[in-house]
């Protein structure tokens, strides 16, 4: 079956409108909101702080802990609150997506906690979460080599496209690939795939993701700089 026109009317390489903000949670050391279309993620960073229980402490390096959660009202059908298999997995992959850019060696025995809440979901929540977490970490003044931006790409029918929404994700011939890329060095820190796609299509999808992440990177840069510029004027 061919998929000639997107349900939303977007172009195949067009992302949903993006909005980003930092400093949204007053009591956190750093925080950010990242909105892509109808998906909204909020990230809060606490620390570096003492790590308890103590047996988790590592005297050689600090630890990053990511917690991903969807609020019960974020989806059309009420989600049972609290962690589940899916959210634990996403927390772990988020952690691994962010770890390569953070310099944790400076904080032996300590922990940096990242809490990601999805307050409205319409696909691409883990990508929005990673983009938000990266902003929040920078806002918290944590030493980082780079920032991370993330977007989902995929295949619907016979077309390769960027930033799938719920309708496309639920299409019977859809493959969704969330990808996270570092902003400066363009290294891939997250790539998840389950579904069918061949090598040529995957490479094409990666190219699309790279372009998308570049756009997100620009938005991230502008958000961070503007926050302090506004505070400065």
């Amino acid at each position: 079956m061919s998929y000639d026109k997107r349900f939303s009317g977007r172009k195949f390489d067009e992302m949903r409108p993006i909005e980003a903000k930092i400093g949204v949670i007053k009591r956190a050391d750093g925080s950010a909101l990242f909105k892509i279309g109808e998906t909204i993620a909020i990230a809060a960073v606490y620390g570096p702080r003492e790590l308890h229980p103590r047996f988790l402490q590592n005297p050689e390096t600090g630890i990053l802990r990511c917690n991903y959660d969807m609020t019960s009202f974020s989806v059309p059908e009420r989600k049972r609150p609290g962690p589940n298999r899916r959210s634990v997995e996403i927390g772990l992959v988020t952690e691994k997506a962010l770890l390569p850019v953070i310099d944790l060696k400076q904080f032996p025995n300590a922990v940096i906690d990242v809490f990601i809440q999805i307050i409205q979901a319409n696909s691409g929540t883990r990508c929005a979460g990673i983009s938000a977490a990266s902003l929040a970490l920078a806002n918290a003044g944590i030493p980082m080599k780079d920032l991370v931006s993330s977007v989902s790409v995929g295949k619907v029918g016979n077309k390769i496209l960027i930033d799938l929404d719920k309708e496309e994700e639920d299409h019977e011939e859809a493959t969704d690939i969330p990808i996270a890329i570092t902003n400066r060095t363009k290294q891939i820190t997250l790539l998840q795939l389950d579904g069918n796609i061949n090598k040529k299509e995957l490479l094409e999808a990666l190219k699309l993701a790279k372009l998308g992440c570049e756009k997100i990177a620009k938005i991230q840069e502008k958000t961070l700089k503007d926050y302090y510029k506004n505070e400065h004027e």
Partner: protein
Amino acid sequence: MAKLLIKEREIVIPGQELAEGLDFLPGQGTSRDENKIISNYLGLVSVNERFVKVIPLSGRYTPKVNDVVIGRVVEIGFYGWTIDIGSAYNGVLSIRDAAEFIERDDDLTKYYDFGDLVIVKINKVTRNKSIDLTTKGPGLKKLLGGKVIEVTPSKVPRMIGKQGSMIQLIKEKTGCDIMMGQNGRVWVKGKSTEKEILASDAILKIEQESHIEGLTDKIKKMLEKNELR
């Protein structure tokens, strides 16, 4: 070949390229990647001849030896007091380093109790981040009364001003006692609550507008006209 990619005092983000070529050297808050210098923080750049450094705009306090900070007692053991100084790690004030003479088997809460505010100096920071504190020295003591507000540690130098001009101004205009710790905690004690609020409003105002030039005069006018908030 060597080229500076940024202007002095520009805001940079983590991973931004600051300079190219081996003629520049990475200072605090930056690192080298091949022939480029990269920022590690969201902060302000400053270039000193060949050194490029980045001063973070936010973040927790990093303890440095000889810094005078305001801490709060969180734990009492046989050896001394554990004190929260607003960094990632707690500091330890051992009985030996306390200014008071303490007899054997004495009750330590008599000197510094849970929740007490103390001005302490950082004696030593080891590689695995254990922090030794002392109250021996001029001006180091327990703080009685007053209130504490928190500001971003990197903005403390601006708040003190050139030779203490800014802090002196607030002290004069409000008649409050003010102690500023390097860890961003500011202790304010005045003759009345109104005066304390006035002083802390002025301090928060400075935090918000710390980059503006001629801020001392602006704050002076505001304090005189009672225009803060």
